[in-house]
């Protein structure tokens, strides 16, 4: 991933962006766009979780806390202070970042993976219970509703852009832009010198430290960036869906969904989380009848993928190519 992008990779990335951008021009099917919007929200989340877990090797299980913080902070500020969501999503993302650094600090002291997993999970539970208990502010499990949508604007030549539940197209383009920016941020970060030392830290923490990698700073940076992105995704989710409950926005189920997506797509790859988010979101929608079995299927997917395809679907392509290449000289 640290080699310069090859021409065919550029072509693939450009093609994906063009296809994604053209979809609303081909079909304006509300349901299809809704599924794609959801998968892009989860895509940002998965991408950001993978940054911390897959690339930096900090196995956290509490990132849904940042999603919930992003969603609730943005919704509450826009409801109570009347600020535009265009502004509040960034305030929310910063709030999530601060929370991320707050959790990051105790984690810095621990090198044990189970401790990191447990502490982050515990932190997310605290956030969920606090949101659920502060009923005078968040309405608890009843759900926070009346969250204002993004304010509309007009583009010269195109006309008025209105964000409403009926018209998914503006939301689609907004989340597509946010996803593209998030992917670019993660890609640029990983391709920088910082990215190299992050991976070095994951693979051999002590060795990296002895070579002068500042572990504290790296971990905090990664945690902060990741929390920021998840916060943005959460804030967008709140304004898009229009109603928030602690279970939906900060529940463990959400984290499990994201973990399943990243594992299916490929932990520690750039495209894996996005592939996983698209496949699992779409699969769940296609298999609507499975509603009761949905989580059962997720559980089974996580088990099967971890046991039989530990590097995920994203590794499948290169693996096949490699197999074919190594086989052919032997055969000849």
């Amino acid at each position, binding site marked *: 991933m640290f080699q310069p992008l090859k021409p065919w990779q550029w072509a693939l990335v450009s093609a994906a962006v063009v296809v994604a951008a053209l979809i609303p021009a081909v079909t304006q099917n509300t349901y299809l766009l809704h599924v794609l919007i959801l998968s892009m929200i989860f895509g940002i989340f998965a991408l950001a979780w993978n940054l911390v877990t897959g690339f930096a090797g900090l*196995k956290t*299980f509490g990132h849904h806390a940042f999603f919930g913080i992003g969603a609730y902070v943005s919704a509450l500020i826009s409801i109570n202070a009347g600020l535009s969501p265009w502004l509040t999503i960034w305030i929310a993302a910063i709030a999530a970042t601060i929370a991320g650094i707050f959790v990051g600090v*105790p984690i810095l*002291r*621990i090198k*044990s*993976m*189970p*401790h990191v*997993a*447990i*502490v982050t*999970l*515990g*932190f997310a*539970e*605290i956030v969920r*219970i*606090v949101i659920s*208990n502060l009923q005078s502010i968040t309405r608890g499990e009843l759900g926070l509703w009346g969250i204002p949508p993004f304010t509309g604007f007009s583009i010269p030549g195109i006309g008025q852009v209105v964000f409403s539940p009926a018209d998914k197209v503006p939301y689609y383009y907004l989340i597509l832009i946010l996803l593209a920016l998030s992917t670019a941020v993660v890609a640029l970060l990983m391709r920088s010198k910082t990215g190299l030392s992050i991976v070095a830290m994951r693979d051999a923490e002590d060795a990296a430290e002895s070579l002068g990698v500042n572990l504290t700073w790296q971990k905090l940076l990664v945690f902060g960036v990741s929390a920021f992105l998840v916060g943005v995704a959460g804030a967008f989710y709140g304004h898009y869906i229009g109603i928030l409950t602690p279970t939906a926005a900060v529940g*463990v189920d959400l984290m*499990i969904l994201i*973990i399943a997506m990243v*594992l299916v797509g490929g*932990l520690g790859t750039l495209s894996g989380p996005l592939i996983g988010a698209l496949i699992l979101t779409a699969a769940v929608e296609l298999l609507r009848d499975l509603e*009761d*079995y949905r*989580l*059962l299927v*997720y*559980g*089974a*997917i*996580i*088990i099967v993928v*971890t*046991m039989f395809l*530990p590097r995920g679907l994203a590794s499948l392509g290169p693996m096949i190519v490699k197999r074919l290449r190594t086989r052919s000289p032997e055969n000849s």
Partner: protein
Amino acid sequence: MTFSIFLEQIINGIVIGSMYALIGSGIALIYGTMRVLNLAHGEFYMLGGYFVFFLIVTYGVPAYLAIPVAVLLTFLLGAIIQRLTIFYLLSREGWAFSTIAVTLGLSIFLQNAALLLFGEQFQSVPYYLEGVIEFAGIRLPVQRLLIFVVALITIGAMTFVLKKTRLGWAIRATSQDLDASAVVGIPAQRIYMITFGLAAALGAVAAAMLAPIYAINPWSGLPILLKGFVVVILGGLGSFPGAIAGGLILGVVEAIGVQLTSSEWRDVIAFTLMILVVWIRPWGLFGQKP
């Protein structure tokens, strides 16, 4: 708050804490021997509870018979699940994370399998013992006393197994040095399987004892798993005595905390305590500094 109510709360805290200790010691046992963080441990608790419920309520088996059978069933289930999943992962590269991931998958799978098989209604089991003991103004239901006694017996038995039996020596040997234990002929993989079963059985004991107090439902595993995590972090991950001490401490701290605030904040108190301990002593209150 009068002094006797305060004392009653502390006793209740110790009783519930003894159950936390059983849960935590199961997690500690698995982590201590095979370095696996078992996210599915709560589901063994949940299934143990259902086994007890079906045996006692549906089939009318007397409790003193039903509980050992349920514990044995959970032991077998734990051992089989270990053989089918963890067994294959332990020798792989990156096993530390893949075992966490697989047990997470197992947890979701078992939870939802229980939901589909047993339904979403909350079940309960009648009290094993009726009556209340009054002593110096303190009221203690006999049922709660029974919980504590069973916890003491179980922990005592477990300590005996670990310290005095060949199985216990083998478990401790594999946890201390896998290669050396293989050299002297200990079948580590089978020991791991049995250890996993034993840990699951510890969860089932806790479930059986709490069944009359806490409702049995498909989701009852997660809260108890999180409590078990707090316990092992407090006591030092992988330390069996640490888990017991951690459980009792957590029980008492929660009881006092709930008296001072309200029961809605019980879990927040537990997790805050955990994060504080990690901040100050990451290796736990009773663990050795690495």
